[in-house]
């Protein structure tokens, strides 16, 4: 429901293929190991240039797993030993992927940090050999070059990259709670300078080839080729290889220098950074910024700063040692386990478990051009879906069309799209006020106002015009889908698709199926969601589904805490310091006070006592005073265009004072307040699993983190129970139960886990 920037950045990078788990097959070498048949590497010689081509079998990506590493070193040793070979080119023949990173499972199987440290040291040694190679090695990069792949590339003497959208370089380790552990922390600052290296390693962002060239991360670019006598992708790789071979020859003949001409700004920066005092200031500044942003909840960024600092101030040996040790320590932290869990979960939620739908959705129609409708349109048109956006009024429609255009135009400004691509994408959108063209629609997503009778009306209108195979999806955050489907002639084609606002930023899509929804309808909805780039959880129908239902008790607790006299600002800082990207009071403002009221009334009716807590009068009063949150300019805070600092809405004081309740003794410390919020959330999430609303804990974690901003460092409610301990959570709940009653009664599944030491994740 609310954008969470921290997650946004996490998800953007993780979404790309980093560390994607390959169909990792453990090969048992039954034959003699002397057999020279290599499975990951093909090795040829062109003149005096060795060409090493990587392509791991049975996998979409190349990862630096043990076999690939050992084959690679074997080949390299052969190259170094050969008199005939004077230089080498390293290239991947796998489309769209150079090396996507180290094998994440290699770390997961380690029991102690010493083991992990050893892995890091092996990597360091391997790359040091490359770096010291007397025969120049050219990395020819096409596709994802991430993590360990980047560390490998920067150990080579020269880098040539294809200038296409798939070719990205990055050090995303921080997003998994670890650090670049094979020399990356030491080499990267030397290559691109301290500020840029910090930026790469601390944000984990992907860098496109053209930017990498400007930064000095790659030496040459190769333009992707169009059709020739072979498929373009194939020929482009071949061309990249030809160019790289020529450069390798040039390097070994000393016709080309690996030294790069630095620009004036670059020269000045590197001069400034040669002054120890300036460097200290940089460390200090970066560290401050990191502390502010992570609130000390994420250990990896601070360790990265530390390791880089050690390397620069105390020399290479100390740097490498520190890197491998810190790498080992980090890999064993709860945070890294939580983040890796999220990564795996995300990969799972990017698959369609329901198979290929019978008919691919090509024509989409969206009802309602509001914030949600237009948002859904925006993520659809740029994936090539022909989209009709229908609204009841011309003004509403115009606003929606402008939203879509602006979203695309912002990408043009960021140079992610050309203006021509924008125009041709925008031509996929048809704005209209009537049902013309609906007879061709494969799916209709309604995003009209959350009112059951209105939803019934549009459902009937739509069913009169759409073809038989067309899926009707409802974008609602709380209305039960079976109630909407009650008005349908064909309930098997009705499904819920709960998007989160803003749609183009929030990665989650919650798909809700009723008992009557057919499997093919679900497959179709998941396929559309995946096409729109969403991470998808599929849940059963019920009041509030999964996400809204988990949020409601926590919101109820927020109201009570405010009634007990905790200032909104204080509450916000308590929640953000626990790891939530947005403070709880701000969250109410962002969601909209009227929506929150609506939802808590509905769910309050459905679930009764368990969802009680704060007095709903507080929300009612706010709505009647027009304090609807950000959208009306006032809520708990005052929102003004162009004003960055938020001021507390002083008009709220009266309302809060009139509803004040005394805080209870023993459950009102800062920590108690944090846990009152989190445990109610977690308890409800576990109950959703218990009741079968959720199919798997993974989906629960992904939904909570990507849809509701549950602290990523905790990995989601289920991972949190596993890592924190079910017993401890039950204990806390019992303590709060004693003070407040049934709202805190732990659910049976949670109690079972506490008693049996079972875990949600094995």
């Amino acid at each position, binding site marked *: 429901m609310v954008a969470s920037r921290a997650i946004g950045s996490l998800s953007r990078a993780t979404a790309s293929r980093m560390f994607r788990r390959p169909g990792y097959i453990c090969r048992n070498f039954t034959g003699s190991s002397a057999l020279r048949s290599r499975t990951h590497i093909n090795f040829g010689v062109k003149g005096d240039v060795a060409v090493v081509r990587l392509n791991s079998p049975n996998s979409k990506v190349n990862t630096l797993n043990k076999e690939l590493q050992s084959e690679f070193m074997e080949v390299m040793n052969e190259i170094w030993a050969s008199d005939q070979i004077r230089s080498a080119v390293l290239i991947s023949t796998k489309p769209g992927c150079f090396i996507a990173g180290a094998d994440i499972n290699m770390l997961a199987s380690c029991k102690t940090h010493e083991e992990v440290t050893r892995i890091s040291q092996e990597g360091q040694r391997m790359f040091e050999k490359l770096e010291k190679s007397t025969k120049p090695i050219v990395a020819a990069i096409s596709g994802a070059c991430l993590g360990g792949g980047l560390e490998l590339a920067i150990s080579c003497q020269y880098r040539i990259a294809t200038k296409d959208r798939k070719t990205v370089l990055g050090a995303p380790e921080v997003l998994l709670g670890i650090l670049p552990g094979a020399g990356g922390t030491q080499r990267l600052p030397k290559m691109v300078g301290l500020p840029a290296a910090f930026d790469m390693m601390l944000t984990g962002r992907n860098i496109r080839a053209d930017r990498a060239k400007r930064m000095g991360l790659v030496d040459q670019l190769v*333009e992707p080729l169009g*059709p*020739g006598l072979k498929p373009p992708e194939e020929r482009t790789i071949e061309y990249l290889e030809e160019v790289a071979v020529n450069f390798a020859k040039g390097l070994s003949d000393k016709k080309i220098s690996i030294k790069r001409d630095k620009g004036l700004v670059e020269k000045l920066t590197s001069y400034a950074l040669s002054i120890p005092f300036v460097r200290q200031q940089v460390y200090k500044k970066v560290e401050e910024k990191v502390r502010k942003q992570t609130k000390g909840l994420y250990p990896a960024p601070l360790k990265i700063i530390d390791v880089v600092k050690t390397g620069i101030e105390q020399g290479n040996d100390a740097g490498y040692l520190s890197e491998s040790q810190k790498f080992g320590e980090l890999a064993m932290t709860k945070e890294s386990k939580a983040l890796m869990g999220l990564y795996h979960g995300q990969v799972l939620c990017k698959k369609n478990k329901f198979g290929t739908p019978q008919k691919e959705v090509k024509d989409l129609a969206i009802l309602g051009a509001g914030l949600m409708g237009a948002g859904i349109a925006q993520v659809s048109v740029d994936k090539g879906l022909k989209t009709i956006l229908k609204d009841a009024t011309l003004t509403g429609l115009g606003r929606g069309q402008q939203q879509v255009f602006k979203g695309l135009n912002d990408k043009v400004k960021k140079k992610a799209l050309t203006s021509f691509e924008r125009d041709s994408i925008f031509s996929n959108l048809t704005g209209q006020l009537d049902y013309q063209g609906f007879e061709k629609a494969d799916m209709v997503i309604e995003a009209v106002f959350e009112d059951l009778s209105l939803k019934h009306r549009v459902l009937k209108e739509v069913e009169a015009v759409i073809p038989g195979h067309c899926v009707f999806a409802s974008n609602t955050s709380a209305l039960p889908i079976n109630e909407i489907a009650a008005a349908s002639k064909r309930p098997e084609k009705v499904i819920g698709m709960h998007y989160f606002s803003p749609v183009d930023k929030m990665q989650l899509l919650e798909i809700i199926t009723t008992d009557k929804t057919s499997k093919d309808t679900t497959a179709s909805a998941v396929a559309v969601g995946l096409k729109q780039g969403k991470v998808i959880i599929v849940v059963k129908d019920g009041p509030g589904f999964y996400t809204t239902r988990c949020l409601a008790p926590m919101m109820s607790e927020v109201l009570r805490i405010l009634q007990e006299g905790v200032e909104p600002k204080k509450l916000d800082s308590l929640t953000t310091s626990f790891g939530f990207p947005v403070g709880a009071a701000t969250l109410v403002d962002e969601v909209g006070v009227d929506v929150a009221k609506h939802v808590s009334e509905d769910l309050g009716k459905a679930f009764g006592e368990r969802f009680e807590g704060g007095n709903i009068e507080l929300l009612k009063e706010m709505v009647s005073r027009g304090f609807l949150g950000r959208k009306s300019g006032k809520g708990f805070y005052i929102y003004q265009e162009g004003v960055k600092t938020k001021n507390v809405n002083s008009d709220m004081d009266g309302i809060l004072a009139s509803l004040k309740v005394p805080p209870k003794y023993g459950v009102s410390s800062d920590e108690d307040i944090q846990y009152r919020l989190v445990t109610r959330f977690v308890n409800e999430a576990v109950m959703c699993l218990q009741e079968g609303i959720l199919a798997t804990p993974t989906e629960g974690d992904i939904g909570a983190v990507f849809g509701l901003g549950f602290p990523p460092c905790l990995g989601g409610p289920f991972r949190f129970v596993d890592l924190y301990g079910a017993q401890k959570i039950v204990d806390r709940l019992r303590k709060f139960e004693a003070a407040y009653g049934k709202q805190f009664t732990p659910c049976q599944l949670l109690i079972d886990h506490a008693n049996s030491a079972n875990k949600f994740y094995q």
Partner: protein
Amino acid sequence: MTSILTYTFKNLPNASTWALRFSVRPLSCSSQLRAAPAAQTKSKKTLAKPNIRNIVVVDGVRIPFLQSGTSYKDLMPHDLARAALSGLLHRTNVPRDVVDYIIFGTVIQEVKTSNVAREAALGAGFSDKTPAHTVTMACISANQAMTTGVGLIASGQCDVVVAGGVELMSDVPIRHSRKMRKMMLDLNKAKTLGQRLSLLSKFRLNFLSPELPAVAEFSTSETMGHSADRLAAAFAVSRADQDEYALRSHSLAKKAQDEGLLSDIVPFKVPGKDTVTKDNGIRPSSLEQMAKLKPAFIKPYGTVTAANSSFLTDGASAMLIMAEEKALAMGYKPKAYLRDFVYVSQDPKDQLLLGPTYATPKVLEKAGLTLNDIDAFEFHEAFSGQILANFKAMDSDWFAQNYMGRKTKVGSPPLEKFNNWGGSLSLGHPFGATGCRLVMAAANRLRKEGGQYGLVAACAAGGQGHAMIVEAYPK
């Protein structure tokens, strides 16, 4: 009825001459013509179609094509166009009042003479009662002018059309920035001193940075040379092959120039300068010299250089097109028929310069001919790499099947029939004027070298292309 009679009447001698010629031809042919048996008999004796007017080229001329920045540099585009038109009048002696219509092609427009056809015609001695319009279609603008004329004649709207093209690359419109233009326009509208001052106060120094005409494809922002280099790489055309082809173009052009074959040229007395009588971009060099040049677009490892690309050129061309009966009635001996033509277009990013590949099989099919029927190929040479890539594409079944939706390849034109008198690489390429040069070269070659059918093809910015069959007029 009468028309049917004329057709049969005209086709008879036509067919017989050809039969005669072909019985002799194999004797004079060198052994390199491996496709000789197929070439002996044409798929069709003529491309005349019943109930459609035959359209002929009476003659066509061009002023010498000069490298930009040389003798024409102080002129305006319509000056060049006027020179070509006057030259045409002089060459054909066509009475000025019979010309029904004038069409010119141009690419980079001089803003003052946006309808350059009209401005040129007014001063060239044509009647001021003859309407004129200007067309633009990048490097095939003159082709578009000709085919527009063909359309007007075929549909019976006109009998006599002058088509041509002009380009002056020595001077291009350089504009004020949009911000500056906006301020100047607003200033024009401002009524009070206060308004003017407040507008002027918004002035920033960067308003003064000029806007140069785009040398790049608007839709992709890629320059054509860059695209050509990628195209050459996609088809694995080597630098050496490109240089060799460019050298061939220059050598053949030089030979044609020395032998006086470039008869479409009319001298142009440039005001205040000497009379220009020949193209000045022909410069046969050596492969060694060419190999020294650095790549011009994809640096440092690309293959397209200044020496294997066509250069910026000033020039103009014009031709007189008539309905055949009109020409005969006026006592002309036409040079060629203009027959079937096609326009094609494809992806402007990766297939920007593959127009000839797409257009050639299409136009052949339309005319009912095969590649073997063609005696003279005149392709526009934008870049050596582009020509060689087109050859490879035309010779590839894989490309035909995967990108053109055809079952088989059309085949690549035999080099001995290809651009024998030089091409755009050596003669120069004034964007808007090249089309007429190609057609006249095909027509003149058919007359000189013998042969019945010529094929003209060209690529153009925007990923477009064109091809046309030119049929020699029976002697």
